[in-house]
């Protein structure tokens, strides 16, 4: 078991859900498959889906919804086998 950090590939506004009324993409304990959407980053009017490159279990978001993030900042943590 090891923890993997998902980091921001671009700066922007961080979102944990697809729209204000939606459910969050992942809750602690949720299974994570490869290419699952973890969060969104909005930059210059484009929404970029941040997907997982690993299989594992979702641990936590490390940033609040709608907060600004910088390149390389840790967005979420997942646990892989």
């Amino acid at each position: 078991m090891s923890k993997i950090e998902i980091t921001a590939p671009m700066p922007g506004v961080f979102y944990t859900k697809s729209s204000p009324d939606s459910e969050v993409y992942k809750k602690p304990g949720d299974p994570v498959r490869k290419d699952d959407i973890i969060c969104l980053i909005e930059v210059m009017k484009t929404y970029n889906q941040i997907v997982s490159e690993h299989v594992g279990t979702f641990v936590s978001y490390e940033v609040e919804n709608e907060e600004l993030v910088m390149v390389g900042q840790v967005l979420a943590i997942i646990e892989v086998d």
Partner: protein
Amino acid sequence: MIMKIKSILIANRGEIAVRIIRAAKSLGLKTVQVYSDADADSMAVKMADEAINIGSPMASKSYLNINLLVETAKRAKVDAIHPGYGFLSENADFADATREAGIIFIGPRGATIRKLGDKVAARQLAKEAGVPTVPGSDGRLEDLDEAIKVAKDIGYPLMVKALAGGGGKGIRIVNNEEELKTMYSVAFNEAKAIFGDGGLYIEKYIQKARHIEVQILGDGENFIHCYERECSIQRRRQKIWEEAPAIGIPEDVLDKMHKSSVELIKKVSYRGAGTVEYVYDNDTQEFYFIETNTRIQVEHPVTGMITGIDLVAEMIKIAGGMPLEIKQEDVKVKGHAIECRINAEDTTKNFMPCPGKIEKLSIPEGAGIRFDTFIYEGYTIPMYYDSLIGKLIVLGDNREDALKRLREVLRNISIEGIETTIPLHAQLAENEDVIKGSVDTQFLMKMLDSKD
């Protein structure tokens, strides 16, 4: 006539705010620039006579906040608001709210914006004005029999579209009656499953479609066109490169297109600058109305370059109650202009936006070169707004000359610190199909796909 506008509030940002301030200054008007917290260092703020902070970097809370903007304009005691493009520029409620506050909206009346913004109403209006519209079923089809009947009239190939679809979804191309028969129920069931409504309509499919648009000006009584623009080079429906005049379209077809546009705006007693957009079928040389944009457009400078008309200044004068002084016979085309939209995007990473600090900036200067921008050395491009950072426009004696000048400028232009789309423009300027003028709205996507 006395010009009723002495001061203007610019309810926009970026390069168009700078452009509006320049035009207002040329008319001797006072300028008030609003800015969000992310735009405090912007060029428009530095240039305007007065600047007012309107808070949040989030556009929904600042540049898109109707009440806030109207209240700010009231407090600043300006005579008029210029909405620019994007944001609230085609929002009829904003035009009405501005007017109700006793402030002039630089653009058409709210009712005109509303009417031309409604796809069905605009298509109907175009028909009444004798403007060709895309042949089709004019709404929902009853059943397959009706589809076959309509298809006989418009001919194949055609598109079967879901009424509830949009943005390119729920569209099928049908090449003959046999295909239509087999496709119809499939398309119906699919539309029902995806959109909850099985309603279908059909429209002529144009294989080699080009986007041609006509610039118009009206003061409510006098209406003119300022010729056309070619905007076929697009990526994901976003224009990347525009030219004026259009390339290789017969004189009589263009003439008909210009006249159609004037007839259409006459119908609504149009006031201001606007654009009538058409899809042009390169194979049949027919054109069809798509929509009208009731604002200044990003690509307006190519028209300004070939006609010498300052469209932004004209729309301000019209809004100020001045009659349109330019007569149709005064509008003359001289030369050929090309505009490149330079975006802060990384062309090697699928056009990923690249906000950041401009470390170095070097723009070639000279006759026939224009760079409309808001960036300067040391400026940090905010991440909250559009990726357009500048428009490079060149004017040549003819198209060949314009392309030659453009290649030269693109070799020498330098924007350091961020990635931009300049490499794409340099590639386009050397592309054989672009040089031949053999492009359609699918061209750029095909070119980009073939590289992957």
